[in-house]
């Protein structure tokens, strides 16, 4: 009986072994044939020299090059060495968004002798908690627009179009922004129901292709503009002249990301590359720009400004002079200065890397310029460009900005891991992909909380910096509160480099007399 059972088991085991032996033999034969095929295929192709000269082995190079990206990011990159955002910056955003403890120990890992870095000047008698006040309210378009916009918020969501961002990402931003009381800039991709669903304040961006407000010729349509302005949530309109990723080139949305819904919102065909012209065809000089702003403000009744990357500054003088001739009510209600280092968008590397001024040059330049022309109170300054940590936001405020916009910081809050595939529809975290399988990782409700926490913790910590400097609220930070490290590694006052300027009222009235 027992022997029989043993014999059966034995027979079974032998059978299993035979099957596996056959599988192994088959696998081996296939492997050998595959290697032979790889060899012949490498030798006979003409496109890649490495594969032709070192058949089969040469393929490893491409594999390793691909894998190296991940190895470097996870194993070898130091905390402060990655670009565009290093791990120290990203970690702060992640911790702020998750609302967990953000304190560090055992000293700063930031080298405090790098030229160009900034330090804040603490006050011997910092603001006490009972003296701290919330940021002062700022009203944009006061006395000019029929419905001016008043807000306390300092740190807002920069323009990222629906199309570049996925549906769940926009929904999470909309809900999070509403809860935090900040505004959401739509980017140039038009206004979708997802922007509106959270109930947040919205700044509608008009791109060069006028997506969402275009007529059949691709020009600005007053009726559609009116329809957008009819939404109570839409608070301001922003005319986009250029964007940080690619000054001198229009927005690019690759065809794989133009789904039927996005095509509908933008008013363009499905599946085709959506490429904006590099400038507005309606105007070619500052007078045209002012006319356009006037027209939008008239049609919508809401504050209207423009967004651009600063390069050549002559035209800004022309602009300010034109404003002085026409009167201050003709001025844009705000100027949104974009730094030159690019955002989530797809852009040619040469424009991303080399075109336009970075914010630490362009922001003081524009602030000083409009101050000289006496327009500082009339025109509000918004700025954007890698300002995703409290120190950078506080720096921008000290420089003279009224508001700070941030795009990629909020993408990190949504779960972005800086895989840098925004233009490929393969975003692994679902932020910038329209692939439903990848989107399912991004839960709008959960991430809306993170967006809210990020904005709130940012405001809190910017406030902390302000209090350390001895002022009761962040909007009172001035250039005198900041020093910048010079080329010898020694901090020098920022006000030495970019001194505060006073209005040149004499010059202004002189010009007016002409």
């Amino acid at each position: 009986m027992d022997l029989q059972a043993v014999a059966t088991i034995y027979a079974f085991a032998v059978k299993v072994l035979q099957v596996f032996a056959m599988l192994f033999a088959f696998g081996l034969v296939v492997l050998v044939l595959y290697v032979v095929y790889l060899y012949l295929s490498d030798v006979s192709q003409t496109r890649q020299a490495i594969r032709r000269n070192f058949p089969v082995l040469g393929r490893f190079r491409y594999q390793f090059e691909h894998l190296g990206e991940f190895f470097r990011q996870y194993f070898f990159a130091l905390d402060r060495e990655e670009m565009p955002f290093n791990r120290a910056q990203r970690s702060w955003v992640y911790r702020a968004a998750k609302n967990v403890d953000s304190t560090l120990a055992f000293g700063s890992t930031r080298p405090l002798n790098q030229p160009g870095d900034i330090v804040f000047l603490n006050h011997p008698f910092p603001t006490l908690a009972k003296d701290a006040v919330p940021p002062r309210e700022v009203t944009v378009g006061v006395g000019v627009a029929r419905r001016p916009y008043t807000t306390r918020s300092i740190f807002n969501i920069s323009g990222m179009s629906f199309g570049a961002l996925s549906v769940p990402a926009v929904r999470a931003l909309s809900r999070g922004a509403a809860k935090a009381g900040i505004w959401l800039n739509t980017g140039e991709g038009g206004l979708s129901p997802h922007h509106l669903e959270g109930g947040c304040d919205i700044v509608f961006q008009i791109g060069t292709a006028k997506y969402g407000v275009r007529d059949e010729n691709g020009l600005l349509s007053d009726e559609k503009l009116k329809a957008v302005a009819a939404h109570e949530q839409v608070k301001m309109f922003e005319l986009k002249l250029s964007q940080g990723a690619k000054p001198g080139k229009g927005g690019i949305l690759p065809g794989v990301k133009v789904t039927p819904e996005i095509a509908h919102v933008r008013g363009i065909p499905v599946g085709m590359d959506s490429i904006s012209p590099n400038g507005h065809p309606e105007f070619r000089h500052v007078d045209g720009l002012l006319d356009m702003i006037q027209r939008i403000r008239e049609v919508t009744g809401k504050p209207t400004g423009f967004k651009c990357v600063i390069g050549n500054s002559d035209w800004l003088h022309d602009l300010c002079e034109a404003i002085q001739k026409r009167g201050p009510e003709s001025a844009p209600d705000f100027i949104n200065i974009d730094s030159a280092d690019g955002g989530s968008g797809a852009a040619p590397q040469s424009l991303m890397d080399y075109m336009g001024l970075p914010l630490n040059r362009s922001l003081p330049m524009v602030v000083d310029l409009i101050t000289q022309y006496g327009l500082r109170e009339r025109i509000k300054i918004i700025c954007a460009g890698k300002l995703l940590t409290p120190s950078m936001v506080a720096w921008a405020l000290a420089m003279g900005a009224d508001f700070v916009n941030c795009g990629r910081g909020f993408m990190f809050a949504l779960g972005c891991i800086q895989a840098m595939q925004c233009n490929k529809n393969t975003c692994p975290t679902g932020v910038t992909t329209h692939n439903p399988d990848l989107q399912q990782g991004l839960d709008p409700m959960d991430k809306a909380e993170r967006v809210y926490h990020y904005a709130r913790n940012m405001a809190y910590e910017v406030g902390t910096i302000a209090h350390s400097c001895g002022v009761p609220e962040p909007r009172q930070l001035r250039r005198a509160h900041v020093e910048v490290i010079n080329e010898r590694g020694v901090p020098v006052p920022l006000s030495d480099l970019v001194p505060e300027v006073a209005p040149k009222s004499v010059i202004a009235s002189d010009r007016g007399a002409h």
Partner: protein
Amino acid sequence: MDGVITLVGQGLYMAMAAVVGLGIARLLKRDNTLGCLIAGVLAGMLLPVFDYDTGLRAENLQQLVFFVILPVLIFEAAWKIDPDILFRWLGPILLLATFGVLVCWLLTAVLVYYGIQHPTGFPWIAALLTGAILAATDPVSIVTRMRQSRVNEGLRTLVEGESLFNDAVAIVLFSFVLGIASHSAMEGAEATGEAVAGAGSFALYLSVVFFGGLAVGTLCGLLTAIAILFLRSAGAALVVLVLAAFGSFYLAEHVVGVSGILSVMVCAIVSRACLREQQDTYLAHAAPTWEWLGLLFNALIFVIMGLVITFEMFTQQWLAMIVAIVAAIGARGLAVFMVSPLARFVGPPIPPSWRLVLSWGGLRGVIAVALVLSLPTDLPYWWTVQSMVFGVVLFSLLVQGTTSTRLMRKLGL
């Protein structure tokens, strides 16, 4: 010597009919298949006038269909599909081609059996055989239209890939059921040496046939790629490809004793995927070659159908035909709509409008005719099955083929 000359004459007669058929199709502005069918009927009518014998017999037809015609048709269909898109849609395609075909097969069999209600003249095994034959779809007319109108690449790949894979599965099922029906276990005789009995050995036999076919196909595909890369000539590559089509089938079916159809299919897919970089060099002439080969054999099958079809079929078997038509369309529709919702678990989801195209556009064409022509005449119900399948194919060509393009336009695809 005389035999060869006779054979050449017979082949030419049918090829001539095929060319006439293509001409008829051009004049009538209908599918080529319909034209060839008419040409076949004409050729059949002319036979007594010339007192000529085509040499077609049920016995040799089976081998002709399986060893000559099917390899070309399957290889051509598999070669046409872009491997990259195929892999993206592989999940839904396999789902439809395995689960969907099984559901369709059983449903057709049940509907046909109870529709005919004649257990002695038309037993279960006949119903299952009919079901297997009618499970193979051939959406040639909508694929042609899709190629012209540049519709969604995904939909086209889904339709083409699904038809290719379900042809293969249906042929495996058909061979299996036929093996049981004729008690010889036709293929089983080579695989195991004995007739199959019992559920366990059924499953074993099927899996050996199935996976053996895949394995042989993989090896053949790799060898094909290696040979083409080694020969480094566009002309030699065509020779190797044609050899691969016939050879992989012969090797699997006749030498190893596993599924030849799966072998041919996998061979074509593997070699096409391996030779992606040689598309413009060694394979520059492959596409037109497969186009004319596929066209010729498609035409031949329908000429043969025209030769075999008789007027009595319609007078005596019209009821069975109607039953089969209803069963075929109903089963296909049910199967597609039952299985499609599951697609999102294994790959991209299939939108509802595509489901409609898949079910109504799933014509029964060349594979069904080829299979039914290969039925041995010693089965008592072969004539009934043949009439039914011919009926369904005719209905497909005349009604579904002409309306499915309109359906696509209406759905905005």
